């Protein structure tokens, strides 16, 4: 059992926030990814959980016990570093054995345990080598083995694939995922790569500018982003976001004659949330657009990217507005041609133009509610 609970944790450097107060409960066996651009506070958060960084406020609990001020080595958590952090002057075997020896385990047990993890990671052939001679992928395997050997309550991983070449990255990704499924250990995984987070995590914590933007399943953050940042950050390219004034059940989008009719189930919520005539933001993924001769929206083809399995059209509505539309790879559109398309009503999301927050649900259909709330300053004071 290892449930990690973060209660209003924050990190300040002087007056500047590196991580603004937030709370999060990571369930036993869960794989949670902290995702965000560099400098967003994700690594700081992970390091606070590990004890490599102190919190400036709030508490951290492991299975109910307060470990906020516990030393890093005494939290029963393993940490996997981006640059492996293998001890350079001892062999791979000794590197892996090291945490057990430090705990004072009997020598025979130590090497039995080492052999176990080594066979899980299939690195038997590396045991007698020095870390300096290994490839990046092998170094990270050894680092994983060293983390695994202690049977920790939780794994904390700081961009473990960030320093690897592309060729190793995908196989290591699968390996880490497989490892997680077989050990079922709680894992917190920091990455700036949304593909990694989407592929591996049970839940994703999207962070930006020291703040948690959204916590949700990969489907949640992809289909129902909580705000404009998440909508732009997740997906490649990100969500198309078009602003226009709402008049009745219609939104006047940029370009000529681009009148979008709000799908029936969402009209009520939207009418309540945005005053008549004020801007609302319509968001949709490239794959939510369907080319259609009779489509309600129209624009000019600005560029086309052939991406192999499909084609990505850049369609300009006016000089400032370009949307991305995914279409069949066989369809050919000359630059400058006018295209028309409709949006899948199931996949359209709306955002408040001033708060930039989503209007309507921020969970994709069929996921359980989650226990996170960004604590605001008032709550903290109370």
């Amino acid at each position, binding site marked *: 059992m290892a449930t990690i609970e973060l209660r209003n944790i924050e990190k300040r450097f002087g007056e500047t926030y590196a991580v603004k107060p937030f709370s999060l409960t990571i369930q036993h066996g869960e794989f949670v990814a902290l995702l965000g651009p560099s400098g967003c506070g994700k690594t700081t958060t992970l390091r606070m959980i590990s004890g490599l*960084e102190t919190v400036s406020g709030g508490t951290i609990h492991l299975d109910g016990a307060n470990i906020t*001020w516990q030393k890093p080595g005494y939290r029963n958590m393993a940490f996997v570093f981006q640059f492996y952090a293998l001890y350079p002057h001892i062999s791979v075997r000794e590197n892996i054995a090291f945490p057990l020896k430090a705990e004072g385990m009997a020598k025979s047990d130590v090497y039995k345990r080492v052999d176990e993890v080594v066979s899980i990671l299939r690195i038997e052939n590396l045991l007698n080598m020095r870390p300096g001679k290994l490839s990046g992928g092998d170094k990270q395997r050894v680092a994983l083995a060293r983390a695994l050997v202690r049977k920790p309550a939780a794994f904390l991983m700081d961009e473990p694939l960030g320093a690897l070449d592309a060729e190793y990255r995908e196989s290591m990704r699968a390996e880490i995922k497989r490892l997680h499924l077989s050990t079922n250990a709680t894992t917190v995984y920091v990455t700036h790569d949304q593909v990694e987070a989407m592929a591996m995590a049970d839940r994703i914590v999207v962070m930006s500018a020291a703040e948690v933007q959204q916590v949700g399943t990969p489907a949640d953050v992809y289909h129902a982003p909580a705000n404009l940042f998440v909508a732009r950050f997740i997906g490649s390219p990100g969500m198309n976001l078009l602003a226009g004034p709402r008049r009745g059940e219609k939104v006047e989008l940029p370009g000529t004659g681009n009148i979008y009719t709000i799908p029936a189930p969402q009209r009520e919520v939207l009418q309540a949330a945005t005053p008549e005539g004020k801007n609302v933001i319509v968001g949709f993924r490239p794959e939510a657009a369907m080319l259609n001769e009779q489509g309600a929206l129209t624009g000019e083809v600005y560029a086309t990217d052939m991406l192999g399995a499909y084609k990505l059209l850049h369609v300009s509505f006016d000089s400032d507005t370009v949307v991305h539309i995914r279409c069949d790879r066989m369809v050919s559109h000359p630059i400058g041609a006018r295209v028309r398309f409709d949006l899948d009503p199931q996949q359209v999301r709306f955002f408040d133009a001033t708060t930039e927050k989503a209007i309507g649900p921020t969970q994709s259909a069929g996921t359980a509610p989650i226990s996170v709330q960004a604590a605001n300053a008032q709550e903290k004071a109370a």
Partner: protein
Amino acid sequence: MANFYETGPAKPVTESVRVDKVTPGARARHNIRAAAVILFAIIGLIPIFIMVVTAFKTRADVVAVPPKVLFQPTLEGFVFLLTERVVLPPAALAEKKQSLEQLDWMERVAMASGQTITGPSDYVRRLWNSVIIAGISTLISVFLGLLAAYAFSRFPIAGKDDLLFFILSTRMLPAVVVTIPLFLMYRQFGLHDTHLGMILLYTAFNLSLAVWLLKGFIDEIPKEYEEAALVDGYSRMQAFRKIVIPQAATGIAATTVFSVIFAWNEYAFALMLTSEEARTAPPSIATMLGRGGIEWSAIAAGSLGFLIPVVIVTFILRKYLLRGVTFGAIRQ
């Protein structure tokens, strides 16, 4: 603070630090460490402090037993260092006291011990020699070093590493090894005890430093800058003048200062290859001991001439100190 692990530190931590470094024990160790460093620094600087203090003592105070901590500061040491004096008979002294106002400060200091100044001391000339020799040799070695460093940094050269190692190794030779043949050569060519001879020697002496240091600095300037200029129709020489030299300005300045300091401090060559005309300050400070009684305050005053530039340089160049003292072999 027994319950530190539950409550944490009293004040919120707003710096980047590991949890096990904010425990009361770790904080205490940190303070002890800082105190130890400061103590070390103070002990290390005591001799330098004493050197400064001694420069302002009178001859009598310098040799007081036990050493005097409190004393009347005087510039006697500096005056004795820089002037030749004769002892005045009492009558002349009394006469001179009448016209006290017309005397400059040096005369007044000299008179306090019953002397009058007859002219500048040899040491003034030797200081001047030091300035000329250190200055000119530095200019030449930095100039030549810059050219060579550029060539070594940018062009393919057969046996480059060996050549560079050879250049460095000239600096590692014991001074005496080269001095014997140089002494004979210099005697042959009439360069013994001349400014030219010393300038040539110090130029060669500092050249290895200049080449190595400057090569390090030039290596750090992206080649692409010059390549862009060459593509734009500049010649190699123009590119060197207009791009490399300005970009390497800091490096050139640091190299210059290091060369000056090394030439300024140099003792062995000067001792063996000069006697009178071109003798520099370091060997003459040493001989001061033998002449006309031990004038420790004068020596201390002379030492300040070596201490003050060095302190200034150490502070200005602290970023480059490591490079300078390892001939650019190590960069930070």
